């Protein structure tokens, strides 16, 4: 291949997408046909089936919403197709994204002359597997043969690090996009970039600013015109959309001006009020007021991230701003002031991500030009060297794979083209291979000529004749953004890949089945749920796929206790595959079911909202009783969030899928928070129970127990002490159960016990499953009690217990996992 390489990076955004190329030394943002570096992520299909994307489509967003789609990035990973009325077509989110990618690909060809076949596409750091897989699928549909996904913050950091002077330390990448907020803490050490951690809010972005302005505007309109425009009223939808559009324009304008007018293309039409044209002027001060709560929310996330990694905001070397809303000077100033760290300037927040992706394409050697024609001359070398590298003295490893026509090379050395460095002369080994260390000039493309000599010292021609290595900041392999593992039947997670694991990755573990799968049975199926998340309890993590071993697919019944060797594999593009080998059956199962974001089913959401509300109430009542102030704070926060979920749920009922997804995710988070509260209370409760149990059971055994029981009880009491010292919850629970049981055994010997138990049971017989039988038993019991026949009374009471409803047993939570 000749000429400069073409490394392509794409920022596939919710609102805007951008593409940049890197030639080994510098990045260049590719402009589209309209001359803009940004292409709105909007797709329109007209009645004739013609597809338009970008700003041409965006114009129709308000006018023709039925045939124009935007913000589909948020729906990536769900399978719901979006309809285009006029043409009757339906496109899934990846298909829509593919349209954008195709357009960007075309722009690269228009400007640089060749249609790229490989690219790096950035994805939000908190994307889960199904969403990443959908993105990779979109790239494939758009015609890319090879793609790699890169978390957006890493892309921004790479781009920022590439241009900035070396300065070691930690920095914060603050990425506020159209709808999501990501913040990442990175660290550079001797030019090596490392991700320390991320955090974010998947539902905070520029859009929220727009809505805040709209709310302000409707309040103004109500005050001045007496017209109440409601967002959730379908009749006001057109007016709301117009307002929102105007709000966004005004907001953008305020990045430069001090004042902006909300201008509507046409007067607002409100049913019952006719048309009117409100005069609304938005000032910087008002915007700042509206912006403040949103910025504070983002700052809260930043502080949490910094605290998690024991970093003081003042220690930050710099903050890199990414995303449209960060263009607003007010926002930048506020964030910088609150965190008290310097801002990296001279970087374009709108295209930084695309530039970083392009740089990463070079590290991954994803040359977009594809394979060029081969020009053969001399001995062919197969070379391995980093195209981009931070290390100042990397190795060039090579092997002569074909001698060509002339003699075989014997010795090799490399000479840097600026003449400043000549490597050691290396003799080829038995495999015709060599390893040569070279030295690079910092922040430059270094080209080396390969000098090959035969035994006599004559210089031979080799192909390729040179190698080029760029020195600069790199990040090794794309890291996994969230841990992936298998949910076990005990609701624990067997982690396969921890967060940060370099991709691709592959790991195997052996699991043991906990239940039998009957051959040829339709309802018998063993599930191996694969989950993603950082919680140690499986049901709090996100289910990203289930590997199933169904009864109808097995050759013979798979008994409980069988081994299953499970291998999970992730490729660089975020695709996961799993494979379960069952030695007992000598069969392999590879089908992973529903690798999708679960649809936000409003009924399910409403139900879990109700449960969580009840849990909050219960916990609060309890916390009040114990005076646990800090728990009350958490609960208040949870309550606030639940109110927000309720609002989203309302929107989801009106058909807003995005709000449904947000509700689902927030519910999971609240669930996790409440779990934590419960766990923090668990230990004191358990200790109290230990004291109670020991006193009660000890008393019973002292009076009514046998010698043997007394000895046993002493052992147990000692074990309980041990468990308390170790703060071992499970052990303590078990020992307490044992102590209780021993106490009960003694207690049952007491003649007074059974009449009391019988009375308690007979008072509940209204709930009995078989009332006549229960009534008969109660009569018998009374008679036995009258006779003082305690053995009989005991028998009757036990029978009665069987007729009374059970306590609802613990529901199996761990996604029905069938393995341990």
């Amino acid at each position, binding site marked *: 291949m000749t000429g400069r390489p073409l490394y392509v990076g794409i920022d596939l955004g919710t609102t805007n997408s951008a593409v940049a190329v890197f030639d080994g030394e510098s990045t260049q943002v590719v402009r589209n046909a309209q001359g803009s570096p940004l292409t709105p992520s909007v797709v329109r299909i007209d009645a004739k089936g013609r597809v338009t994307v970008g700003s041409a489509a965006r114009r129709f967003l308000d006018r023709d919403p039925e045939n124009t789609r935007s913000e589909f990035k948020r729906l990536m990973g769900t399978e719901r197709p979006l309809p285009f009325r006029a043409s009757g077509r339906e496109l899934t989110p990846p298909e829509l994204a593919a349209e954008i990618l195709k357009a960007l690909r075309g722009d690269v060809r228009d400007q640089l002359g060749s249609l790229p076949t490989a690219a790096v596409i950035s994805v939000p750091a908190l994307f889960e597997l199904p969403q990443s897989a959908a993105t990779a699928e979109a790239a494939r549909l758009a015609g890319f043969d090879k793609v790699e996904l890169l978390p957006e913050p890493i892309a921004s950091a790479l781009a920022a690090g590439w241009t900035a002077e070396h300065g070691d330390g930690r920095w914060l990448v603050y990425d506020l996009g159209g709808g999501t907020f990501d913040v990442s803490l990175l660290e550079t050490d001797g030019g090596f970039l490392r991700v320390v951690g991320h955090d974010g809010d998947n539902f905070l972005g520029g859009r929220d600013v727009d809505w805040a302005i709209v709310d302000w505007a409707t309040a103004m309109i109500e005050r001045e015109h007496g017209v109440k425009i409601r967002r959730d009223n379908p009749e006001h939808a057109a007016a709301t959309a117009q307002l929102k559009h105007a709000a966004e324009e005004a907001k953008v304008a305020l990045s430069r001006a001090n004042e902006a007018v909300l201008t509507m293309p046409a007067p607002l039409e409100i049913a019952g009020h006719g048309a009117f044209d409100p005069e609304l002027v938005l000032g910087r001060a008002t915007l700042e007021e509206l912006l403040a709560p949103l910025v504070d929310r983002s700052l809260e996330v930043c502080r949490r991230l910094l605290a998690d990694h024991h970093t003081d905001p003042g220690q930050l070397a710099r903050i890199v701003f990414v995303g449209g809303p960060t263009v607003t000077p007010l926002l930048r100033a506020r964030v910088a002031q609150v965190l008290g760290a310097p801002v990296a300037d001279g970087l374009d927040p709108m295209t930084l991500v695309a530039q970083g992706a392009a740089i990463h394409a070079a590290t991954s050697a994803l040359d977009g030009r594809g394979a060029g024609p081969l020009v053969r001359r001399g001995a062919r070398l197969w070379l391995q060297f980093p195209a981009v590298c931070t290390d100042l003295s990397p190795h060039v490893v090579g092997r002569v794979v074909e001698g060509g026509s002339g003699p075989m090379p014997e010795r090799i050395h490399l000479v840097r083209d600026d003449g400043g460095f000549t490597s050691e002369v290396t003799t080829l080994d038995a495999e015709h291979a060599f390893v040569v260390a070279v030295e690079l000039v910092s922040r430059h493309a270094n080209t080396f000529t390969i000098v090959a000599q035969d035994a006599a010292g004559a210089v031979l021609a080799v192909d390729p004749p040179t190698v080029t290595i760029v020195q600069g900041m790199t990040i090794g392999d794309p890291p996994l953004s969230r841990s992936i593992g298998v949910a076990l039947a005990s609701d624990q997670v067997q982690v396969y890949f921890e967060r940060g694991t*370099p991709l691709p*990755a592959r790991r195997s573990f052996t699991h043991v089945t906990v239940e039998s799968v009957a051959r040829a049975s339709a309802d018998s199926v063993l599930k191996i749920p694969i989950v993603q998340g950082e919680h140690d309890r499986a049901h709090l993590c996100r289910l990203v796929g289930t590997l199933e071993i169904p009864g109808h697919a097995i050759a013979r019944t798979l008994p409980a206790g069988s081994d299953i060797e499970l291998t999970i594999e992730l490729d660089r593009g975020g695709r996961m595959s799993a494979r379960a080998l069952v030695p007992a059956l000598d069969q392999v199962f590879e089908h992973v079911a529903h690798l999708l974001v679960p649809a936000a089913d409003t009924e399910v959401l409403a139900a879990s909202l109700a449960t969580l509300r009840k849990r909050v109430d219960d916990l609060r009542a309890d916390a009040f009783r114990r005076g646990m102030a800090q728990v009350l704070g958490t609960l208040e926060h949870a309550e606030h969030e639940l109110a927000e979920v309720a609002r989203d749920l309302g929107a989801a009922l009106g058909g807003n899928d995005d709000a449904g997804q947000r509700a689902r995710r927030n519910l999971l988070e609240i669930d996790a928070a409440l779990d934590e509260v419960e766990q923090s209370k668990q230990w004191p409760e358990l200790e109290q129970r230990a004291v109670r149990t020991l006193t009660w059971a000890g008393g019973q055994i002292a009076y009514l127990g046998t010698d043997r029981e007394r000895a046993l009880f002493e052992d147990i009491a000692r074990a309980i002490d041990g468990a308390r010292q170790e703060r071992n919850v499970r052990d303590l629970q078990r020992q307490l159960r044992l102590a209780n049981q021993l106490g009960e055994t003694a207690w049952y010997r007491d003649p007074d016990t059974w009449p009391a138990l019988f009375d308690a049971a007979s008072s509940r017989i209204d709930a009995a499953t078989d009332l006549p039988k229960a009534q008969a038993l109660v009569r018998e019991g009374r008679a036995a009690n009258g006779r003082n026949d305690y053995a009989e009374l005991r028998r009757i009471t036990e029978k009665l217990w069987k007729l009374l409803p059970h306590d609802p047993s613990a529901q199996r939570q761990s996604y029905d996992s069938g393995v341990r």
Partner: protein
Amino acid sequence: MNAVERWAGNPFFVLELAVTASRAEVERAGQKWLAMLELGLARAAIYTTPLGVRARTPELVRTAMAELRDPERRAGHEPWCLLQEPASVIDPPESTASEGEPGFDAMGPLQWSRR
């Protein structure tokens, strides 16, 4: 066994680095091994550990690099790489007495197996 894999996969063994290796040395060694593996060079195919000789794979090398980039994890690996040479060289474990008598096919004569 997991325990064996954990130790045999110690990044310092995989990359053939000393405990004192700097961040740059880690990257350099990783890059070199990956390149050599890609070219299928015999020299890169195996490495030694206290638990014997192991096959080096690109996956292991990449994971090793990632492990050493993170100081937290690197600290976890360091105490385990003091011993570089195979333990068997230091003191070969005596061969355990075999279970004794080998089996005898009794299924055939008693007609419990296939004709």
